[in-house]
C-alpha cells in the first residue's frame, strides 16, 4: 500500500477502514513549547510561536494528529479566572470559589461570559488557523474540550467544585444548566471554527465521568447534561464530525460512557497501560463499534523507560489490538517535560515495525 499522509491514515482509521499503518497520536504543550525556542511567558502570547512549536512537534515526532493548545484556562478568563505564567507552566492563580470556606452563592451568582472575549482565547484561535494553513493537508486535527460540568470546575476551581457538588449539588447543577451549557456549546463550536473543513474529529474530555472523580449518585445527571451539550455542539457545527472520548484519568468508566453515549461516539481514546481498564477488555467489548486509541503509557514507560521498553510496550499493544479493531497507538494524555527524545523516536520505529498492515 502506498504511504498515506497522517491525515489520510487517521481518517481511514476513524472510518473503520484499514490504513497503511496504525496511526500514531500523542501531543504535548510542554514539548511543543520546547520546540518553539521561547519561554512560556512568550509562547502564551505569540500565535506564531504556538503554531511553530506544534508544527515542529508533528514533524519531528511523526504524529498523525495535531492538537493545538497552551493550557486549560484561556477561555475562562472572561469569568475572572487568572493564571500564573512561569517559564514553563500555566496554572490558575484565581478561580471563583473560595478554597477554605464553601459558599453556594458563588454558583447562584455566576453569569454567562463570551468564551472568546479574552485576549488569550484569540491568540490560541489565531495559532490554530496558522497550523491549519501550514500542515492542514498533512495531519489530522482534533479539537474540543470538556463538558459543562468540567468547565464549571475550571471556572470555580476543580477541588472546590468537587467539594461543593457534595455539599450543595442544587447550586452546582443550577450553574451548569443556567450558564455552562450555553457556554460550552459556544466555546467548543467557536474552537472548531479556525479548522474549517480540515477538522477531523471533536475531542470530548470525560473527566467528569472518571470513576475516581464522579460521585456515583450524580453520574446519571452528569451524563445527561454532557450528552445534551454534545448533541447541541453537533447541531451547531452542522455536519457529522466524528466524536472522540478523552479519558486522561487512571480509572476510565468506558462501560458507563458507552452505555450512555452509544452511537454519539466514534472513537474511544483512553490511558492504557497505566489505567485500570485493560486494552484487551476494551477491544473485546467495543472493538466492533468504535475505533480505539490507546497503547502508550506516557507516565512510566515513555517517560522513565528505555527505547527497548518502549518497543516492547508498542509490540504488546499491537499484539492485543492491531488486527482486532480499528486501532491507533495513543498516549493517555499529554506527554510531560523530560520525556526522552529517544523514546519518542522509538515509538515511531516500533509503530512502523509492528503496526504496518
Amino acid at each position: 500500500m502506498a504511504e498515506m499522509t497522517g491525515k489520510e491514515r487517521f481518517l481511514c482509521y476513524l472510518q473503520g477502514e484499514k490504513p497503511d499503518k496504525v496511526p500514531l497520536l500523542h501531543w504535548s504543550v510542554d514539548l511543543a513549547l520546547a520546540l518553539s525556542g521561547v519561554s512560556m511567558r512568550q509562547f502564551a502570547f505569540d500565535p506564531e510561536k504556538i503554531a511553530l512549536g506544534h508544527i515542529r512537534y508533528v514533524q519531528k515526532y511523526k504524529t498523525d494528529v495535531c492538537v493545538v493548545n497552551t493550557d486549560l484556562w484561556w477561555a475562562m478568563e472572561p469569568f475572572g479566572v487568572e493564571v500564573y505564567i512561569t517559564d514553563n507552566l500555566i496554572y490558575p492563580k484565581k478561580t471563583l470559589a473560595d478554597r477554605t470556606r464553601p459558599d453556594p452563592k458563588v454558583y447562584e451568582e455566576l453569569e454567562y461570559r463570551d468564551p472568546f472575549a479574552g485576549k488569550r482565547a484569540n491568540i490560541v484561535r489565531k495559532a490554530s488557523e496558522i497550523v491549519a494553513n501550514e500542515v492542514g493537508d498533512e495531519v489530522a486535527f482534533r479539537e474540543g474540550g470538556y463538558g459543562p460540568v468540567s468547565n464549571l470546575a475550571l471556572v470555580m476551581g476543580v477541588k472546590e467544585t468537587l467539594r461543593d457538588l457534595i455539599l450543595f449539588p442544587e447550586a452546582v447543577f443550577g450553574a451548569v444548566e443556567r450558564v455552562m451549557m450555553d457556554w460550552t456549546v459556544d466555546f467548543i463550536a467557536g474552537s472548531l471554527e479556525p479548522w474549517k473543513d480540515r477538522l477531523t474529529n471533536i475531542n470530548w474530555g470525560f473527566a467528569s465521568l472518571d470513576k475516581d472523580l464522579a460521585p456515583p449518585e450524580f453520574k446519571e445527571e452528569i451524563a445527561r447534561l454532557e450528552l445534551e451539550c454534545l448533541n447541541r455542539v453537533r447541531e451547531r457545527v452542522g455536519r457529522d464530525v466524528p466524536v472522540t472520548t478523552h479519558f486522561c484519568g487512571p480509572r476510565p468508566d468506558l462501560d458507563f460512557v458507552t452505555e450512555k453515549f452509544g452511537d454519539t461516539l466514534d472513537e474511544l481514546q483512553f490511558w492504557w497501560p497505566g489505567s485500570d481498564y485493560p486494552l484487551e477488555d476494551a477491544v473485546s467489548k467495543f472493538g466492533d463499534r468504535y475505533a480505539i486509541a490507546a497503547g502508550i503509557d506516557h507516565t512510566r514507560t515513555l517517560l522513565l523507560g528505555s527505547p527497548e521498553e518502549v518497543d516492547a510496550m508498542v509490540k504488546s499493544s499491537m499484539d492485543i489490538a492491531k488486527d482486532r479493531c480499528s486501532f491507533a497507538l495513543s498516549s493517555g494524555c499529554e506527554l510531560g517535560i523530560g520525556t526522552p527524545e529517544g523514546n519518542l523516536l522509538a515509538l515511531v520505529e516500533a509503530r512502523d515495525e509492528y503496526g504496518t498492515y
Partner: protein
Amino acid sequence: MEQDMEQHLKAIVGSFLAFNYFEAEAATKRALDAGVPKGEITKTLRALFLTALERYEEGKYSIAHVTAAASIFEVGFKLAKAEVAPKGKVVIGTLGSSHYLGKDIIRLLLTADGFEVVDLGEIVFPEQFVEAVEREKPDIVALASMIIACLPLQKAAIGMLQARDLRDNVKVIVGGAVTSARWAAEIEADGWAPDAPQAVEEVNRLLRELKEGA
C-alpha cells in the same frame, strides 16, 4: 456530662456523614461550648475522615466525597485542635503546579496524627524547599508532584538539598498521582507511598529511622 458529650459527638458524626458542612461546624462549636474535651472532638473528626478515605478505597465514595469530607474535617479540627507537643515536623508542598487536594489530605492526616506540618502551599519550586529546610529544620520533607510536567522538580529538589549539605538532616518522601516506587528509587528519595493513609505510615517509619540514626 458523659451523656451530654455523647449527644454532642453524635451531632458532629451525623452532620459529617450527611456532608452538612455548616451544621458540622455549628455542632463542633456547641460541643466546645458545652465543655466536651477537644481531644474527643478531634478523635471523632479524625475517625470520620479516615472512614471517608476507606469508603473511597472501597469504591463507595468518589474524590468529590473525599474533598467534601476534608473540608468538614478541617473546619472542625481548626476549632477543636488541642495544644500538644508534636511528634515530628514535616515540610510539605506541591512542586510546580497548583494541585493541592492530595497534598492537603496528607497535611490534614499528618496534623491529626500529631505532626507539626509546615505547608509551603502550591506552585512551590525546589529553592523554596531548600530555604524551608534551613529555616524550619524539619524531620521530613514531603514533595508532591501531581502532574507529569512537574516530576523533574522532585529530582531537582533532592539534588539541591544534597548540594547544600542538608540531605543527611532530613528524610525525603515523594508522592503524587504520577509518581511511582520506581521513580522514587531513581531520584533517591527515602520514601514513597501510593495513597494518603500509607503516606502517613511512611512518614512515621521515616521519623523512626531518623531517630534511630538509620
